[in-house]
C-alpha cells in the first residue's frame, strides 16, 4: 500500500489574503468605487485634522491656565475645569452639593437593585413603589424641608436641571398619555373627540410656543394670589407637550393588539377596567417600550429649549460661563463640551432602545 505523505498546504496567492482581499472587496471593487474611496479619503483629510487639532493637539490641557494664557488656537480645557461644577449643578450652593449627589446615587442604586431582583415575584411592586416614593425623596433632597435648608429652584441648573425636568416630564406624562391613548381609541365620541383635538393640537405646534404659553399665559389662568414657580411652569409645559407624544406611542401599541384579545376578555366577563388593566395594557405597553424610550430621548433633547424661557440648563450655562469677565469668548469650548456630554447620554440611550427593540421583536416571533 502506497503511502501518500500529506502535502504541505500552500498559502493562498498574495491577492487573495485577508487584508488585500478585504481592500479589494470593500474599497476598490471597481473604478468608480476606487474613485469614491479617494473622494472619501480627501473629505476625511479636509475635516478630521482641523477638528482633532482643535480638540487635542493644539488644545491647552493646562488646567490652571487663565483666559489670557490659554490661547485661541485650540480648546481651552481650563475653562471647562473652572466651570465644571456649574455645568453639572448650576448655581446650587457649594456646601449642599452632597444632596444632588445623593439623589443621583439613589437613582443608580435603585436601578442596580432592580436588575438584581429581576426574577423575584416582587419586582413589579418594587418598580411601582420606587416610582411613587423616589420622586418625593428626590424633591425633599433637592428643594429642602424636613430639616434640610431650602434651595430655591432658580439656583438649580446644568445637567441636574436637565435630568430633573426630563424625568418629571416622562414620569408625569406617562399616566396622562395612557389615558389619552385610551380616550382616542374609545368608542365614546365626546371623549374620543377631546383626545384627538388635544393630541393633534399639541403635535402640530412647536414646543417653544407651548413653553411660552406655560410661562406667560398659564399664570393668568389662576387666581392672582397663586405665585407660580418658573421651573414648575416649564415642567407643566413640557409634561403637556410630552403627553401627546406618549399617547401616540401607546396608541401604536394598542392598535397592535389583535382584536381577539379584546373579545376574549369580554367573553371572560371582565369589566372594562379589568380588561384594560389585566389584558390590554400589559401587552400594549410591552410593545411600546422601545418607542417610549425613543420618546424619552426626544424629551431629553427638547429640555435644551428651557434656555429660551430663561432657565439655566446646560446649554444656558455655556452662555453664563463665557460671559463671565474671566472667560470671555469661550462659547465654542462650552458648546463642544456640552455636545460631548449630551451626545454620550443620547447615544447610549438610543443603543439601549435598539437593543430593546431587538429583544421585544424576537419574543413575538
Amino acid at each position: 500500500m502506497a503511502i501518500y505523505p500529506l502535502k504541505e498546504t500552500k498559502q493562498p496567492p498574495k491577492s487573495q489574503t485577508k487584508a488585500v482581499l478585504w481592500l479589494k472587496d470593500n474599497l476598490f471593487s471597481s473604478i468608480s468605487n476606487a474613485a469614491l474611496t479617494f473622494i472619501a479619503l480627501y473629505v476625511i483629510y479636509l475635516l478630521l485634522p482641523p477638528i482633532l487639532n482643535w480638540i487635542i493637539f493644539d488644545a491647552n490641557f493646562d488646567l490652571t491656565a487663565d483666559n489670557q494664557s490659554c490661547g485661541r488656537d485650540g480648546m481651552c480645557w481650563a475653562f471647562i475645569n473652572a466651570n465644571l461644577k456649574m455645568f453639572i449643578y448650576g448655581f446650587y450652593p457649594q456646601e449642599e452639593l452632597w444632596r444632588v449627589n445623593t439623589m443621583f446615587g439613589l437613582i443608580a442604586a435603585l436601578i442596580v437593585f432592580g436588575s438584581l431582583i429581576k426574577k423575584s415575584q416582587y419586582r413589579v411592586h418594587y418598580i411601582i413603589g420606587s416610582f411613587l416614593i423616589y420622586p418625593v425623596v428626590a424633591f425633599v433632597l433637592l428643594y429642602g424641608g424636613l430639616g434640610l435648608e431650602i434651595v430655591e429652584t432658580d439656583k438649580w441648573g446644568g445637567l441636574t436641571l436637565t435630568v430633573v425636568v426630563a424625568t418629571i416630564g416622562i414620569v408625569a406624562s406617562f399616566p396622562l398619555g395612557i389615558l389619552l391613548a385610551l380616550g382616542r381609541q374609545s368608542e365614546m365620541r365626546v371623549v374620543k373627540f377631546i383626545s384627538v383635538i388635544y393630541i393633534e393640537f399639541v403635535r402640530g405646534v412647536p414646543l417653544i410656543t407651548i413653553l411660552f404659553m406655560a410661562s406667560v399665559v398659564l399664570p393668568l389662568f389662576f387666581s392672582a394670589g397663586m405665585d407660580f414657580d418658573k421651573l414648575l411652569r416649564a415642567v407643566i409645559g413640557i409634561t403637556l407637550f410630552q403627553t401627546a407624544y406618549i399617547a401616540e406611542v401607546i396608541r401604536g401599541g394598542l392598535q397592535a393588539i389583535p382584536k381577539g384579545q379584546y373579545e376574549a376578555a369580554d367573553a371572560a366577563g371582565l369589566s372594562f377596567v379589568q380588561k384594560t388593566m389585566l389584558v390590554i395594557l400589559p401587552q400594549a405597553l410591552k410593545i411600546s417600550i422601545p418607542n417610549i424610550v425613543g420618546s424619552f430621548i426626544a424629551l431629553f433633547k427638547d429640555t435644551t429649549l428651557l434656555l429660551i424661557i430663561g432657565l439655566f440648563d446646560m446649554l444656558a450655562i455655556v452662555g453664563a460661563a463665557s460671559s463671565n469677565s474671566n472667560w470671555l469668548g469661550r462659547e465654542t469650548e462650552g458648546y463642544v463640551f456640552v455636545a460631548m456630554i449630551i451626545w454620550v447620554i443620547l447615544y447610549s440611550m438610543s443603543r439601549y432602545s435598539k437593543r430593546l427593540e431587538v429583544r421585544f421583536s424576537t419574543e413575538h416571533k
Partner: protein
Amino acid sequence: MFTKLKSLLYNNEVRAVLFQILAVVVIAYFAYQAFDNMMLNIEQRGIRSGFGFLNDEAGFAVNDNFFLDYSPASTNLQAFYVGIVNTLIVAITGIFFASVLGLIVGISRLSGNYLIRKMATVYIETFRNIPILLQILFWYSIALSAFPSPKNSINFFDSIFLNSRGLYLPKPIMESGFFFVLASLVVGIVAYIFIKKRSNKKHDETGVVTNTTVYFLGLVLLLPSVVYFASGVYLEYPVLKGFNFRGGVDLSIEFFSLAFALSIYTATYIAEAIRSGIESVDSGQKEAASAMGLTQTQSLRLVVLPQALRVAIPPIINQYLNLTKNSSLAAAVGYTELVTIFSGTVLNVVGQAIEIIILTMLVYLTISLVISLILNIFNKKMQIKGK
C-alpha cells in the same frame, strides 16, 4: 324600582353617556374657572384684550426681509406677515438642502464602499444625537468668529460675498420685463408636461421610449433664460459701502446658521428614512428585475425606488414638518421669523400674551394641517392597488 335603577346604572350604554356628560362638565368647569381668572387678571394688570393691536404701528426694524414692504412705521399685522414669510423661507431652504444631503447620505449608508458607508454612519450618529438648539447656537458662534469682517469678505466672482454679517447675493431687479420671464417659464413647464405625457402614452401603447431630456433643457431652462436676457432684467450686485454691503439679496448670518443647522440635523433623519425604505424592498425584486434583463440603473429607477419611496416618503414628510417646527428655535439666535418677531418683539411691546401666542400657534397648526393633508393624499395614491 331600586333594582331597575341599579341595572340601568350597570348598562354599558347608559354608563357611557353618563361618563361623557361628566367629562364635559368637568372640562367646562375648569375652562370657565380659567377664563374667569384670566379676565380678572387681565383687568387687574390693565392689559388690553382683542386683536386691535394688529393695526398699531410696529415701531421696530426687521433684519431679514425678502420681498414684503416693511418699515418700522408698518403695522403689527405686517410684521406678522413678514414673520410668516421668513419662517417659510428658512423652512423651504432647510427642506431643500436636508433632502439633497439626506438622499446622498442615505444611499451612502448602503454603499458597497466601506469608507463611504462608515462615514455616513458616523455623520448620522453624531448629528442626530446632539440637540438641534445646541447645533444652531454652535454654528452661529462658529460663523460669527470664523467668518471674516465685511472688509475682508470671501469673494466669489465679485458678485457673491460671505462675511460675518451674512451672505450677499446679486438680486434680479423685477421691472416690467420680469413678467415675461415668469410667463415664459410657465409656458415652458406646461409645454414640457404635455410632451412628457404624450411620450408616456406612446410608451404605454407601443413600447417605444422617447428621450425627453432635450425638451426639458430647451423648454424649462433655455427658453426662460433667453427671454430673461432679451427682456433687459438686470442683476443688482451687492457693493461694499462703509461698514457693510448695500444692494443685492442679503441673507443674514442668523439665517445662514439656522438653515445650515436645520439642514444638517434633519438630513440625518431623512437619510435613515431613505435607507429603511430601500432596505424594505425585498431582494427578490432586485433579482427578478435583473433576471428580466433590466440594467442596474433601470432596476433601481423602475423597480426598487418606486417601492422604496412608498415606505420612505411618509416619514420624510414628517421630518419636513419637524424642520418647520424646529425653525421656531430661531428665537435663540435672533433670525427674525414668526416666533422671534411676534412672540418675541411684538409680545414685549404689546403685552397681549394670549392673543399673540394663539395666533403664532395657529400659523404652525395650519402648516401641520396642510402637510398632513398632503401626506394623506400621498398615502391614498400610493396604496398598493389590486388587493
